[in-house]
């Protein structure tokens, strides 16, 4: 197992490098003097000169890159162009909100997807299966943000079930926190449920075709036992893969939902920053998003290896 882990890490390094280069280049892609971009409003000649000195903008590009990389590694992710707040701080302040939203959304998505996907697979071809497949197809075709909006409309406005938006930190008041996150989380999670359901279904169908299912039946196991004990454990192993990736993609998933609900998370910060031309913040968020996705990919591989006895007890 350890060689497996080490090998994956080794493969990840060059990619991580390239990712940092890509993020670094973001500022330099836009036309114009980066110093002007970074300074935003207060472009006094002294400030410009200072920035040039600080970031070494007169030095060759690759030197600048290493200076930048060094700072990132030390936790200095720059300052926001608009608020002058350290980027790292701006992000960490908003991260809990995004995480709460993302995780509750994922839990909801799985609560819907796994049972439905399992039933659809077991009763393949039946009405339930066709309805479930139809939902999946719709879920994949309908834009996420549209689902979000429609759900807001139905759940909040029409039925008055949940409060609209308004973030309450988990640490302040868990119950209120959950009450407020529920609507955006359901909206976000429903969109992802379609994909998870399709995946669970196909994984389950494949597992049910395996010989050991027949063996279990030959032992006198009921269908219930076969599905819940023998099949499910096998079928869910691949599902872990996409769940892991969805965790890694939390920031990405949250972008739209946070914008609609004016949820004070990292996703909304990203969108705002684009309009404010706040490049340092964007850099920071993109870097974080990319790295969490990469790390999630790696962890998913490891967890997969750990869950499947054929790999962990090789």
């Amino acid at each position, binding site marked *: 197992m350890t060689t497996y882990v080490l090998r994956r890490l080794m493969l990840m390094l060059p990619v991580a490098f390239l990712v940092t280069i890509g993020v670094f280049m973001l500022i330099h892609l836009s036309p114009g003097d980066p110093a002007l971009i970074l300074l935003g409003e207060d472009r006094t000649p002294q400030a410009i000169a200072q920035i040039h000195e600080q970031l070494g903008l007169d030095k060759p590009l690759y030197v600048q890159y290493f200076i930048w990389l060094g700072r990132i590694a030390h936790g200095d992710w720059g300052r926001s162009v608009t608020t002058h707040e350290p980027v790292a701080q701006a992000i960490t302040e908003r991260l809990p909100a995004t995480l709460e939203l993302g995780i509750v959304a994922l839990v909801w998505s799985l609560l819907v997807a796994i049972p439905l996907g399992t039933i659809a697979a077991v009763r393949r071809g039946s009405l339930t299966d066709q309805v479930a497949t139809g939902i999946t197809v719709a879920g994949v075709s309908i834009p996420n943000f549209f689902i979000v909006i429609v759900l807001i409309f139905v759940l909040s406005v029409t039925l008055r079930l949940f409060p609209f938006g308004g973030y309450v930190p988990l640490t302040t008041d868990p119950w209120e926190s959950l009450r407020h996150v529920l609507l955006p989380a359901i909206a976000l999670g429903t969109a992802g449920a379609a994909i998870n359901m399709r995946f669970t279904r196909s994984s389950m169908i494949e597992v049910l075709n395996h010989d050991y299912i027949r*063996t279990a039946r030959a032992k*006198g196991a009921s269908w219930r036992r076969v599905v819940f004990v023998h099949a499910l454990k096998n079928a869910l192993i691949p599902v872990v893969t996409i769940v892991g990736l969805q965790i890694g993609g939390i920031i990405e998933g949250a972008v739209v939902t946070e914008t609609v609900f004016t949820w004070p998370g990292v996703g909304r910060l990203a969108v705002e920053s684009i309009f404010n031309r706040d490049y340092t913040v964007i850099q920071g968020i993109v870097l974080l998003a990319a790295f969490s996705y990469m790390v999630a990919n790696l962890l998913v591989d490891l967890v997969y290896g750990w869950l499947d006895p054929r790999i962990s007890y090789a």
Partner: protein
Amino acid sequence: MTAHLLELEDVQTQIALRRGAIRAVDHVSLTLDPGETLGIVGESGSGKSMTALSIMRLLPRAARITGGRIRFKGRDLADLSEDEMEAIRGTEMAMIFQDPMTSLNPVYRAGWQVGEPLRIHRHVDKRASIAAAVDLFRKVGIPDAKTRVDQFPHQFSGGMRQRTMIAMGLSTGPSLLIADEPTTALDVTIQAQILDLLRALNRDYGTATILITHNLGVVAGMCDRVLVMYAGRVVEQGTTEDVFVHPEHPYTWSLLRSIPRLDATGHEPLRPIEGSPPDMGRLPAGCKFHPRCPFVIDRCREEEPDLREVRSQLSRCWVTQAGRSLDSPDGR
């Protein structure tokens, strides 16, 4: 007359394919008494596995029993509900399958799987079932039983996995064990061991055994009686000795002839059966074997023979029913 343990009377099973239904099991009848061993021999697609699955009522989705009766311990299995059938499977009848690697669940430990029938049917708790599994492992000849029960199937060798399957099948002391090609996926040396094991278990526990195989040699060492199947039909049936010494059906005769002999002079060519297995969707008229038969006469092409007594066996062949005896298989 004592009741048979298992009785198949004119059983028919059909598989629905896109191009039409095929008769996988076509009017098959057989009987099995307690403690007896029966071999079912045939090529792939001859219907032997389907017969076994029909007995266990574990047919795939597209297949259905369309006729005949299957009686087990006097009860007509068609009368039983699925729950009642589940109660019989794993307790009174057990089945082991061809490929032990794919037939064992990869994510559960071996002891857990072997003890499962006890937990399902005898309401034994987990710890007791693992203990019983250790015992069973010893009985089937798996060394280091205590360590092995905690391991996963992929950590076992092919032979050990098949022993695990056998242990699983015998855990509740069934009256009938069906072994579907238990040795086909194994090395030749291991094959012999597994067959010895099955024979010993049959002798020691009196479990009636149906051994399904395409290999006549396997049957020779193990079974009291043998049933030869072709294209879903029984073509010959009798005691092993009779069938081997004087086969009364050209298919059996050809099978016996095709076995290479150790005492051959050395440069004799192999004698495979002419032609290839039949397309079940497009069977020939008359006798289903006639296109490949070295003894074919005109009648074979027109009319399908019934299964009738020929000497001490049952045979479905016009030629032997007419009294002709086939040459002895080794050409002497």
